């Protein structure tokens, strides 16, 4: 019985780690102040690879890769996030042209794909497409589906295909009419305190100057 319980515990502990290992999501993070994007998880083929689940694909596969786009900028700004495709690298066109790629926002259930074409093409993502306006802590989830035709020929075994995506953000000030962003824990208003400090220092300097000026005048009158 003890052995059974031990096995059960081991199984329960192992299962989540296995799930994590086999279902890595892509992640795009923006940290604000024109800092660069961070792309995860990356793979041995590319440090900015968002497709960890599209490895070793086989004819007939239909795989979905989840990608989360996060805004980690502070709560004074809101960001508009855009995406576009630059298409396949030249040496990858032949292989990727055999595959079909679809992209949609996870929350949209109307099957309106923002991209639905051969994986080598730029198609509907040739120009910038807005993914939405995100406040601090906000995110957009994308589902990227790759369909591999069952007729894919033996000549496409062990192929590697590279395709580039670009993400762009535009920061805007949060307006009073905007929804209140979530608290991030930093509510110290450091700029306000800095302005007060400058004003105080200025007043002190002015007072000192006036005092010194007055003393000089008094000394001049005595002499």
């Amino acid at each position, binding site marked *: 019985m003890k052995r059974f319980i031990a096995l059960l515990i081991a199984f329960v502990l192992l299962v989540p780690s296995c799930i994590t290992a086999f279902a890595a999501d892509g992640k795009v993070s923006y940290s604000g*102040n024109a800092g660069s994007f961070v792309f995860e998880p990356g793979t041995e083929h590319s440090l900015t690879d968002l497709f960890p689940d599209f*490895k*070793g694909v086989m004819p*007939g596969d239909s795989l979905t890769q989840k990608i989360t786009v996060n805004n980690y900028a502070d709560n004074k700004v809101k960001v508009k996030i855009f995406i576009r495709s630059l298409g396949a690298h030249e040496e990858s066109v032949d292989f990727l042209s055999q595959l079909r790629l679809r992209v949609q926002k996870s929350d949209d259930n109307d099957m309106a794909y923002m991209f639905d074409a051969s994986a080598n093409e730029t198609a509907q993502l040739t120009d910038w497409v807005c993914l939405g306006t995100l406040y601090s802590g906000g995110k957009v989830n994308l589902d990227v589906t790759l369909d591999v035709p069952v007729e894919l020929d033996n000549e496409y075994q062990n192929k590697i295909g*590279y395709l580039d995506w670009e993400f762009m*953000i*535009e920061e805007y000030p949060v307006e009073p009419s905007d929804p209140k962003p979530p608290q991030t824990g930093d509510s110290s208003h450091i700029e306000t305190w800095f*302005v007060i400090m*400058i004003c105080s220092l200025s007043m002190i300097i002015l007072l000192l*100057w006036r005092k010194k000026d007055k003393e000089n005048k008094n000394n001049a009158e005595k002499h």
Partner: protein
Amino acid sequence: MLGKVKIKIAVVAIISALVTLMGQATLAYYSTVGKATNVVTSGSIQFIIHEMTDQGTEFPEEGVYIVPGDVVSKKVSIENICEHPFYLRVKMVYGIESTELSSDECFKLNINEQDWVLHDGWYYYNGIVEPGITTPDVFSHVEIVGSKVDNSYLGKTLTLTVKAQAVQSENNPISDGNTYTASGWPAE
């Protein structure tokens, strides 16, 4: 007089500093672009044919000397060395001095018919070969048929070649458990 000028300069400097700070607070909004290079890779099917003897050693590449009636130990199995499961079939090709022979002419094999099913000249493994797994032996002994190998074979080289083909089992349904019904078997 000099003191008043200093005060005016100081006031102007303070106002300028405040305007600059407020300007930064309202105008410094940014845009930036980042590029992700995404990668798709395709898989493959790979296997190794193992030819062993009863002693657990590899069957010699240069072959063995035989006389009519000999029973040679030769255990043939196939190992899946890729990351994908597959269906498998093998075929034995017999020859003498680069001339193909029919199977019953010189050799008699003890085929493992429990795991391998004959269909159209190929022996199909009746299951899926999972990654890292080695199949049961296709056969383990080869008998040199004494009644067929006469003096005309003296000094000749007889060959027994094992051909194997595999096709992915993922996304590839079969009928009634018969692996020969899978799609994608290569042309012979």
